[in-house]
Structures are given as structure tokens and as C-alpha cells.
């Protein structure tokens, strides 16, 4: 009988009573199983009843859940709350950095920079490296490649010479990416429609632009001969003008697109260095 009672009380202990720690671990388990709704509810409960380590870690997990669901905005909010709630300076900085990462992903580069500059360098190496890494991303977004290179280099121990060298060579390539120049492409297309597109390496649009503007120019001249210059100016010339203007602005845009395509490739390679 007594044995039965002792076993019963053991069971009832695990079945009904759930304290802060158990609720937190339940949340962790559900998080690992990707049951995000159940996990969210458990973490919110810990957050409401508890404080200290469990609450802060719950905020961290709530933020991660939001990130997996693509809700960067609310992940940033949870990380902000975690940073405010933590007492340890290093932990506070870590959550601020996670928040900055979310803001960079939201292209709020300037706001992220403000927070990043507020973090001291007098911290454990891993945090300082992470800070410099995010600074590198932020400067890259702002096209400040010199500062970006410095930050990225300080995000690695100086002893990792292979990776340092990789970074150096990547930035070396990046700084020399000047081709195709959007201005040159534009000017070329002003002189001869399609020339800028050829220069930027876009043959299809080059031929297209040349034929289209050429066709309208021929039509304008033809109408001027048959019906008089006023007629031609009034009805055909505007079409020529439209595709001539469109052609050279497009040439500039194509060149810009090519440039940023190349830059993006370098950016992905920089991230690969840190994987």
C-alpha cells in the first residue's frame, strides 16, 4: 500500500507540478521538435512568472522562433528585451549584437551601426569578433569597403593567416571592380543606341535597342518626307525619343546591375570565410 502511495506521489509530482525550470525545459524540448506554437506558449509562461536566467533564455528562444518564421522585426524586439533584462555586461552585449544582426537583415544599417558603436572592445574575444563581423557587414552595406575590410579582418584572430589572406585577396578583387562603369555605358548609348548595353555585356538588349530606335528614326524620316516635318515631329518623333531615352537610362542600370552582381558574389564569399 505504502509502496503504491510512494509511486503515486512520484507520478503526481511529474504529472501536475511544473515549476519554472521544468516549463523552460519543456519549451526547449518543443523548440527542438519545431513545435513552435507550444514552445512559444511555454516560454511566454516562463517569461511571465520568472526572471533571471530562465526568462532571458526564454526571450532568446522566442527570438529564434521568430527568426525561423521569418519575423525579423519581432525577433529584434525579443533580443532588445533580452539585452535590457540581462545584468551581465557580456550577455547584454551579446543580445545587442543578435539584435543588430536582425536589423542588418532588415536593411536598417544606420540603426545597427549606432548600437554597434556603443559596444566596448573590452569583452571576451568571441563577442568582439562577432561585433567586428557585424560592423564589416554594415560597412559593406554602406559601400565603405576600406572600413569593411578592417572590421572583417578584426573579426578573426590574427593568427589565422590563411583566412586573413583570403579576406585580403577578396577585398583586393572588390576594390578593382570598376567594370562596367554605369556612366560610360550611359554615354556610349547616348552616342549610339545599344552601344552601352554591348559594353556592359548585354548583347540581347543592345541589338534590341539599336533596332527599335533605328526603326523609329527611319519611320520619322520617312514620314517627314511623305507628310512634312510637322507631322513627323508630332506623331512619330515622340516614340523615337521615348525609346532613345529609355535605351540609355537602361544601359546605365544594366551596368549598375552587373557591378552589384559582382559585389554580391564577393560578399557571399566573405561570409563563407567565417562559416
Amino acid at each position, binding site marked *: 500500500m*505504502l*509502496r503504491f*502511495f*510512494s509511486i503515486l*506521489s*512520484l507520478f*503526481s*509530482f511529474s504529472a*501536475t*507540478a*511544473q*515549476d*519554472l525550470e521544468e*516549463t523552460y525545459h519543456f519549451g526547449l524540448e518543443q523548440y527542438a521538435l519545431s513545435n513552435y*506554437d507550444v514552445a*512559444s*506558449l511555454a516560454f*511566454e*509562461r*516562463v517569461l*511571465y*512568472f520568472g526572471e533571471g536566467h530562465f526568462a532571458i533564455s526564454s526571450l532568446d528562444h522566442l527570438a529564434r522562433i521568430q527568426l525561423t518564421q521569418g519575423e525579423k522585426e519581432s525577433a529584434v524586439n525579443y533580443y532588445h528585451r533580452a539585452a535590457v533584462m540581462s545584468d551581465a555586461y557580456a550577455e547584454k552585449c551579446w543580445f545587442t549584437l543578435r539584435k543588430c544582426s536582425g536589423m542588418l537583415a532588415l536593411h536598417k544599417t544606420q540603426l545597427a551601426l549606432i548600437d554597434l558603436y556603443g559596444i566596448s572592445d573590452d569583452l571576451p574575444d568571441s563577442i568582439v569578433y562577432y561585433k567586428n563581423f557585424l560592423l564589416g557587414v554594415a560597412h559593406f552595406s554602406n559601400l565603405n569597403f576600406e572600413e569593411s575590410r578592417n572590421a572583417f579582418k578584426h573579426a578573426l584572430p590574427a593568427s589565422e593567416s590563411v583566412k586573413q589572406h583570403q579576406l585580403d585577396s577578396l577585398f583586393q578583387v572588390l576594390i578593382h571592380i570598376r567594370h562596367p562603369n554605369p556612366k560610360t555605358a550611359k554615354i556610349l548609348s547616348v552616342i549610339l543606341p545599344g552601344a552601352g548595353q554591348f559594353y556592359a555585356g548585354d548583347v540581347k538588349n543592345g541589338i534590341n535597342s539599336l533596332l527599335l530606335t533605328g526603326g523609329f528614326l527611319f519611320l520619322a524620316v520617312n*514620314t517627314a518626307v*511623305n*507628310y512634312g516635318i510637322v*507631322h513627323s515631329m*508630332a*506623331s512619330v518623333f515622340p516614340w523615337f525619343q521615348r525609346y532613345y531615352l529609355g535605351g540609355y537610362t537602361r544601359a546605365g542600370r544594366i551596368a549598375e546591375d552587373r557591378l552589384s552582381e559582382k559585389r554580391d558574389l564577393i560578399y557571399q564569399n566573405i561570409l563563407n570565410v567565417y562559416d
Partner: protein
Amino acid sequence: MRFNLLLSLLIFVLYKPAQAQNLYDIPRSKEFASYLFHSQQYSLAAIELERLIYLEPQNDSLRENLIRSYSFNKDFATAGKRIDAFFPEKKAITSPFDDLYAFNLLADKKTHATRDFLATNATLNPEKRHYYQAFSYLLEQDFNNSERLLAEIPKDESSLSALRDLSHEGLTMRRKSPGLAMAMSALVPGSGKFYTGDWKDGIISLISIGITSFQAIRGFSINGTASTYGWIYGSIATGFYLGNIYGSFTSSKRYNKRQADKLAQKMDAAFFLHP
């Protein structure tokens, strides 16, 4: 035997503080559910309240909060289904669930079901009943019935004054005749759109049809019927002319729809701001 007694005592002692911390007991769960509800996390609140109602099936304040959570989450159908489960016999429904039931049915645009429910229900106070009845007709844009109903109701029910205005507005709503608009545009291009209120589009149509017909006439007068120029502009002008007649038809339809939408928006505002 003695060992077993000791063990169960030990477990009981250990169990005590754990129980004091149980985050899933009823008082704490209620507190947590109320926090979720008041911090507007309605979907999480609904999960928590469903669990609580399972533990305390007859608690009306929990039930009310659950229904309100679903309503605030715009899940009117579930809210209605939940009330159905609480009161399988609709005659036994009590306040405030009669009110909530009618509200959720109407919010779900189930106007007929609302009127059927109101016809059999005896608990709802007359002013509320009249409000929901009149509103169900308004939602159907059946302004004759809403006017008739509102005329029978004593004028001192203040919550109905907004509905009286809406009903009157619906009955006297100005509509534009598609036929008249088309006939006007056929006589003078663009004039149909002056009538339907799109006067800027009317001016543009008048000018563009005028210019293209002028060009066509000039083309024909220079080269006779062999003039390609004349044929091209002639067909553009005819196309624009016919298109404008068709456009006057759609413009009047759009005008009428805009008026109806405006009224529907006002109705929504009046309904959801209603206490």
C-alpha cells in the same frame, strides 16, 4: 516497510516546494491567461483558456474571455462554434453569450442565421435585439427592410441612431446610370465621364480622341484613302472612341461600387466600435 514510509515522506517534503512553484495550477494559469489576453496575444490566450475551461467547465468568465479571444483574433466562426458547444440548446443561452453569439454571427456575415437566432431568443435586451436585427438588414444592403424595422422601434434607443443614419444614407444613396453615361460618351466623347465624376479622365479622352481624329483627317486629306497615316490614326481614334464608351459604362459601375463600399466601411466602423 519503514524505508518505504520514509521515502514517501521524503517525496512529500520535496513535493511541497515544487507544488508551490507549479506554473500550471489553476490560479497561476488564470493569471497567465489574463496577461496573454490583456497583452493582446489572443491566439496564445485561446490555447491557455481552452485548457483552463477543460479544468473548470462551468466558469463563465473564462468562457467569455475565450470567446472574446477568438473574436479579437477575427476567428468568428470558431467563436460561434464554441458557443454552440457551450449551449447545445440555444434556448438555454445566458447573458453575455447571447450578445456574443449574435455579434459573432454578424461579424461572420451570417445575416439569416442571426435573424433566426434573434427570433427564438428571449434573454437579449430589446435594444440589443433591435440593433442586431437592423444591422443584419444593413449588411445585406436591404435598406427597405431596415427602414421599416427602424420605424417601428421607439426613438429613445440611443445606440440605434447611428444605424438610422446609415439606413437613411443607404436608401438615398446616389447612383449613376450606366446607360446614360454610355449615351453621353457616344454623343460627345468623354462627357459620360464628366457625369460619373471622372472628369479628368473625360478631358483626357476628349483631347486624345480629338487629336487622333484630326490627324486621321489630315492624313486622308493629304494622300486620300491610300494614306497609311490616315488609316493608322483613324483606327486609333475609333478604338479610343469605342473604348471611352465602354469606359463610361465601367466608370459608372465603379462609382456605384465606391459609394456602396464607403457605406460598408462606415457600417463596419459602427459595428466594431459598438460596445
